[in-house]
């Protein structure tokens, strides 16, 4: 009696539960040059993905990782870097670095150990350096596919972006509770912190500026209800031969990202992309491209601005492509929260 009842109930369940099969996915052509858009996805939802855009044919492919591998990429994809034909995708909240063959997008390997909330990578002296946001450290890897863990370098706060200039690693490490204002300089030959430079509250982003370095400090809200105690964004220039802070430029607001091409910085501000003249240390155009954007990068060959619009942050975002003179060239749909770009075009 009971068994029969169970059977009937299960049967009913299956009647209601008939699933529609997922729609077929068109495969992605192999070996083409193009732009990877790294879509962060939502925190704890495991919906990070790659979008691949081919400028020559103006074609866009979504869910590239899932299409090539039949698996999900993970939770919060932060950045992607290409080194010797291998794509290194930093998946922050999954605590892993996913390695793919950039010809086929097939999974090669995954690095899962000695990482604690990884954020970004630099390669130098046959070593891979990874910032551990929640580990207050930088993990150093070497060997095949950089899988061999070597050591940890401690820095304060939440280490985030890094750049290499004059054979030194520069790392920003803001804190959220008590604002840190420092940038650490690491010598990769000894893997020691050789200098700590003081900039301004919340240094969250760092880019190469010619042979020098630019740091974007986003400022603080302090008490949210009190607009009078805010500090606003500033851009700092560090000279890489003397390892000293040389200049600062007031930007205003609390920007999200920035990119540099020749003597101009492009900062995604509160209401527009702000064009900053780094040579003359002034804002060139505060309303260069109107809108509120999440990410920005310069494509190095054709010198085009790729700008990520996260829209509602819970649906497909959009990427806008602009020339350096501010004319829109094209736009295409991306995944959830297009947070960074990786150019596979040279």
């Amino acid at each position: 009696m009971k068994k029969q009842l169970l059977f009937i109930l299960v049967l009913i369940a299956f009647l209601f539960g008939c699933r529609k099969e997922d729609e077929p996915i068109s495969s992605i052509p192999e070996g083409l040059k193009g732009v990877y858009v790294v879509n962060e996805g939502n925190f704890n939802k495991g919906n990070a993905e790659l979008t691949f855009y081919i400028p020559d044919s103006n074609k866009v492919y979504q869910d590239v990782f899932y299409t090539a591998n039949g698996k999900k990429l993970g939770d919060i994809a932060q950045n992607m870097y290409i080194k010797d034909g291998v794509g290194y995708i930093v998946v922050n909240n999954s605590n892993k670095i996913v390695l793919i063959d950039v010809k086929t997008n097939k999974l090669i390997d995954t690095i899962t150990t000695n990482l604690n909330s990884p954020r970004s990578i630099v390669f130098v002296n046959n070593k891979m350096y990874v910032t551990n946001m929640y580990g207050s450290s930088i993990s150093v890897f070497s060997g095949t596919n950089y899988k061999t863990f070597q050591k940890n370098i401690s820095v304060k706060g939440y280490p985030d972006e890094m750049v290499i200039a004059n054979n030194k690693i520069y790392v920003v490490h803001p804190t959220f509770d008590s604002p840190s204002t420092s940038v650490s300089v690491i010598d990769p030959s000894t893997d020691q912190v050789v200098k700590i430079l003081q900039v301004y509250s919340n240094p969250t982003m760092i880019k190469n500026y010619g042979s020098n370095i630019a740091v974007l400090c986003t400022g603080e809200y302090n008490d949210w209800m009190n607009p009078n105690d805010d500090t606003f964004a500033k851009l700092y220039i560090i000279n890489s031969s003397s390892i000293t802070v040389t200049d600062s430029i007031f930007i205003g607001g609390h920007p999200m990202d920035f990119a540099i091409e020749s003597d101009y910085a492009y900062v995604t501000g509160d209401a527009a992309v702000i064009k900053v003249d780094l040579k003359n240390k002034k804002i060139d155009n505060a309303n260069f491209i109107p809108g509120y954007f999440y990410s920005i990068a310069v494509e190095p060959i054709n010198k085009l601005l790729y700008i990520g619009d996260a829209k509602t942050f819970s649906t497909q975002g959009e990427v806008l492509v602009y020339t350096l003179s501010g004319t829109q060239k094209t736009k295409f749909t991306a995944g959830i929260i297009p947070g960074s770009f990786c150019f596979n075009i040279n």
Partner: protein
Amino acid sequence: MKKVILIFLFISRVYSENDSLKTYKSNEVIVSASRTEIMMKNSPSFITIINSESIDKVNGIKLSDKIQNQPGLIFKDYGYGGLKTLSMRGMSGEHTLVMINGERINSDQNGACDLNNLLIDEVERIEIVRGGGSAYFGSNAIGGIINIIPKQNFEKQKYKLGYSIGSYNYKKYTAGISGDLFNLNYNVSFLKEKSNNEYKFRFSDRGTIFEGNRKNADFDINQVSLSLNRSIEKFQLSFYGNYFNADRGIPNTITSGDSKARQKDNDLILMLQSKYKQNNFSLSLVPSFRYLTYDYANPNLTDGLSFVHGNANTYRYGLSFDLNYLIDDNISIVSGSEFFRTSIDCINYSNLKKRNQFSGFIGFDINQEFVVPIKIYPVIRYDYYNDFGGKVSPKIGLNFDIINSNLFLKMNYSENFRVPTFNDLYWNPGGNPDLKPEESRTFDIGFSIYDFEINSFMDFNIDVNYYNVFTKNRIFWVPFAGSLWKPKNVKNVESKGLESFINLNLFDKMFDLNFSYTYTNAVNSTKGDINEGKLIPFIPEHNVSSGLIFNYDPLTLGFSFRFLSSTYSEESNNRLSKIDYYHLADAFIQLKLKIYNISSNLRLEINNLYNSEYVVIPYYPTPLRDFKFSFTINY
């Protein structure tokens, strides 16, 4: 062995003769439908009453366990021991009003109630009312109401002891004493539940199998409650106090590594109820106090110096006054007012935040005869909040007794609201003091058949109901500037559906069979929104639940089953965000023995009987099959 059971059966039949007196479902009393005691059959709403007898006929001890198989209830479940909120009629957790004895317990900080943090012990009944109820109870009563009514009158001089063990080092201890002291009826009960909760899980996520043991989901919960009750002629005074304390691990998504986060909760509720009842009127005055605190620490997020830390203390003082007046046999007045003062001291607010709330309501219970007997329940309520002003909530409910107290037609129209939470208003950074309340209007219509006797061995109950809920100005946190998010009144949601329920009793409740099916269609109806027309995440369209209870004293066997169709975790209904449908079953076997004055209860519970692999929230795994064995004695 067989002989032993037969002897037990015999003993118990002798001692439980009184239990077989016929009880009529339609005559069960409910207070959460119209804020005054009415019989279930007279209510205009689609309701479920889980009485003290049926509470034991379900697995588990948490409120979420006790109601999870009831028609149309959908849970957002972060895994056993984790957060579990209840959504009704396609709404969210903060649109279900949860009360103890009519006293709201939804968090003032986030609007929802964690049903895994509510242990059910010494409860008279749990009332579930589907549909809007702001006109009687104020904010949050949009999808429905859950009201837990604690037991008030206890048997004279009784001792209770219980012990349970289960999978994953699960242990539960219960103890209680009740009696009469100087004409004062009292009960004190204590409950402790703990487990390392390293439950086995396994699920597949599009090609990747995740399996293992859950880490950092342990819990250690203690609860003490005290009830005092004294009646002097027409005057009744009762006190209810409950203290809850929990120390637990807060697990992470399975993809983001082992968490070390911990949370400590303390929750104290004190209520003093004084009632005066005359022939044609009753008065009730309830002063109440609640102190709620949590402390969260996550050493994973260390900056080398300190932990990421969350902490808040909520203090709430309340005073409710109810006056019911019977004008004549056909009309009575239900009225009252409430005052609440809430203050929250939270690490994420810039200073101590306070809210004062005043409400008044008046309604009528009208009996009319127009072809058939009709009951009409019009009511209107005004709520004033010092932080954003006033809100009017009207409601009208109708109940037509179509055939001889067996078949009833019911319908309701109501306007309901939900106030912005303290976090919405004051979170630093992002809080938006300019938020307006969410607004909703609900219409439902349905019929109920109660206690329909086919023959003396068989009777059944049926409810079928259609509803439509439209909510506007829904509060969502949206990107604002920089990396900052801010809550805004941005979305509209339309939800409609069908609820159906059938209950069949055979051989004087020897077999009790339930089956329910609900269809829910909750859709983003914000004009021009990028996700307009898309289904609301985590709300399944189809939900089937059923249960079978076999009872032949001293033996009770229970089996329950539920099925939930697939949902999406993303508002865009992206195909990769689809969460598979699942079905699972629970079962128990219970033996109640009574020898002289000692009654004992042996019970084995099996959860997730056939090892269903499922998740409700992506990457928060749920347990595979587990067992619990308990032994209780009452003296």
